[in-house]
């Protein structure tokens, strides 16, 4: 099972390049696709989900060109888009039965699968309610359920935890981890903690290009010895922000505790253990510095 993204670019009308020469090879596991807003994540997801065509480059699924044979990938695909709608007059079972029919699943299998999925996403109690009555978080769970309907080998989820409460978010992360065994999961998000909890691989994307592709451990190693905690008076914080890359601040009795990313520590700063958010910000800052240079 392999998904290969080979020098994929996407240009929208007006000459706006959302992706430029993006290359990545994916094998079973959870890939966390991280990037700032407007980085090109959703465009990449749409290309991989066969919603839109790449302007340049190609995507292959198990060696088969997706442009030539999209249905091979679609049959194996579960897709949770960032924005999607539901039919408000149907209840969740009817909606999932409909999508199961569209995906070509037989009625008996899909019925059993829908029961399990509703239990999994905690919607069994509201199965008879029209979808028009659902809250945003509940609709998001319907989206998660539909993505898993066909037991997909390739699961693409775009900002899946948007609108979920903390409890549901944890459940979804656990679910992703459980699902990741023999399938490729692509989790696109800008929430680092979601990726931290589930991803076996991380791809950082910015301005339509791949900034880094590594395991979480490897990314953390890149910032080892570059993260510092610095206690400074609140009045000096603004000056410090202009001089250093600060990933976090918290106000305490002795001043502001700033988490600083730098090769050399500010005077009086103490080294701390880096986390993925530090690594993410560090890689992005390096990328931007490289582009600016």
């Amino acid at each position: 099972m392999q998904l290969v993204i080979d020098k994929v670019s996407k240009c929208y009308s007006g000459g706006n390049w959302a992706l430029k020469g993006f290359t990545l090879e994916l094998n079973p596991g959870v890939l966390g696709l991280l990037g700032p807003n407007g980085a090109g994540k959703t465009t990449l997801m749409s290309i991989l989900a066969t919603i839109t065509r790449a302007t340049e480059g190609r995507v292959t699924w198990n060696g088969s060109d997706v442009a030539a044979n999209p249905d091979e990938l679609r049959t194996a695909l579960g897709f949770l888009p960032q924005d999607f709608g539901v039919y408000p007059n149907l209840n969740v079972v009817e909606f999932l039965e409909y999508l199961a029919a569209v995906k070509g699943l037989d009625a008996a299998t899909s019925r059993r699968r829908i029961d399990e999925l509703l239990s999994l996403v905690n919607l069994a109690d509201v199965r008879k309610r029209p979808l028009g009555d659902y809250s945003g978080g509940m609709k998001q769970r319907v989206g998660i359920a539909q993505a898993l309907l066909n037991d997909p080998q390739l699961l693409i989820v775009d900002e899946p935890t948007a609108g979920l409460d903390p409890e549901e978010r944890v459940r979804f992360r656990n679910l992703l981890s459980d699902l990741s065994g023999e399938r490729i999961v692509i989790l696109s998000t800008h929430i680092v903690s979601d990726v931290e909890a589930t991803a076996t691989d991380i791809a950082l994307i910015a301005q339509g290009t791949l900034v880094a592709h590594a395991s979480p451990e490897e990314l953390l190693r890149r910032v080892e010895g570059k993260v510092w905690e610095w206690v400074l008076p609140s009045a000096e914080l603004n000056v410090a922000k202009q001089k250093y890359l600060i990933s976090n601040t918290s106000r305490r009795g002795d001043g502001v505790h700033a988490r600083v990313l730098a090769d050399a520590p500010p005077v009086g700063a103490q080294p701390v253990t880096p986390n993925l958010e530090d690594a993410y910000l560090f890689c992005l800052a390096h990328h931007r510095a490289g582009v600016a240079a």
Partner: protein
Amino acid sequence: MKHARILYQMVRADFLERVRRYSFLLTLAFAAYLAWGSASGLIVLRLGEYRGVFNSAWVGSMMTLVGTLFISLVGFYIVKNAILRDEQTRVGRILASTPMSRVFYTLAKTLSNFAVLALMIAVLAATAPFIQFFRAEDTHYQLGRLLAPFLWVGIPAMAITAAVAVLFETLPVLRGGVGNVIYFFVWVAGFALGHEKGIDDFAGFEVIARSMQAALRKVYPAYKEDFSLSLGDSILATKRFLWTGVDWTPAIVLHRMLWILAALATAVVASLFFHRFDPSRAWSFRRASKSPAAARTNGDALATAVEPRVRPSPRPLTPLTQGAGETRFWQLVGSELRLMLKGQRWWWYVVALGLLIASAVSPTVAARDGVLTAAWLWPALVWSQMGARESRYATQSLIFSSARTLQRQLPAVWVAGFVVALITGGGYALRLLVIADWHRLLAWFAGALFIPSLALALGVWSGTSKPFEAIYTVWWYLGPLNHAPGFDFIGTTSATSRPVLYIVSSAILVSAAYFGRRVRMAYA
């Protein structure tokens, strides 16, 4: 002053948002088409066998009537989405959190609608001098006579159309497809009332017609009451007469201005029904009595009531033993059919059943024709969802990323629509079978093919249900109801029946739908 500025900014933003959409080009193209139709003689204003000399007064008045007739109908459907757009873009929620009053909002939307419609009238006005030049029957240009009808007739007509569109959007029953169908009949009634009672109708037909008829009677006393604005009848207008225009007396102008007052009053009335984007007031007619009141309009209420208990160990998922994506076409047709009919209230089925039975047992063929005509208008809103549902409910990404969607889902939608036509018109077909009236049966079959084909093609290409609701209603009125040649897709009379034409048209429409969906998908 402050209020005027706020109103101006609201109208301006809404107007710019509309005119910067590609669809607005179609709107202007429609106005340009009307101008071309007037110039070429495709659209002709006729008083029996007479028409006026193409001087400034005649050209200005003819173009104005063309505008008020067609734009008050088509324009209504074009602008009847001002409030809906604020809902869809969620801008409405932001507006609702400001001190903006309801009256202010409906007035602003009326003015914005009016600006769009007035722009279409302006396109016609701008082309009027060229038409006079092109026809070259009178080279004496009189700007006042040319433009006065646009000002005194066109502008009030557009104002009332703009306000009625806002009113329809605020009334719960009329804001959806039902309103689109009903407006056509309101529009017809508006003209009929003016004509029968001889009062100043909103489109200004009576005021202009009276003046033209009086002028013609002076020259040709034998002239009867015929007055028509029609398509392709230019050969019937064999004689010409000179008309110098309406004498715009203060009384007439005041009468016309009353329509602007009526438009403002309509906007105020609309504000009484405007939900101000409060989800607990923005109820849907279809779902009104279906769900508990609190939960019906606000998902949060339901979410709070049934917020899930934590289940730490959900059941594991059963792996699929059969491959996904295998062709189960009829299962999909069943799902599409259910999707189409889901949400209809019980009385919808009762009426459909009543029409079905009546079309089977009506004693005469004429009566059966009439009942079938009604039976095939009743499901218009069911058909109008075809091809547009995915766009309307934003489910494209879910459906278009499934395997063989184009080859399976789109045909399944069409078959489901065809099944609805077969069932609702089935009683009539059964009767024809019994009496072995094969020609009428073929015409009925052609109609059953044509309706879902038209719905699917319009739905796929427009992405909304509105074009089908408007076009089908007009088609149904002209053809099955009034037996206009070429429009009778049911074949209500042997003279107007064209089954082969409609079977061929159906094939073309289905192909257009397939092609339309194909170009919207990245991959077939």
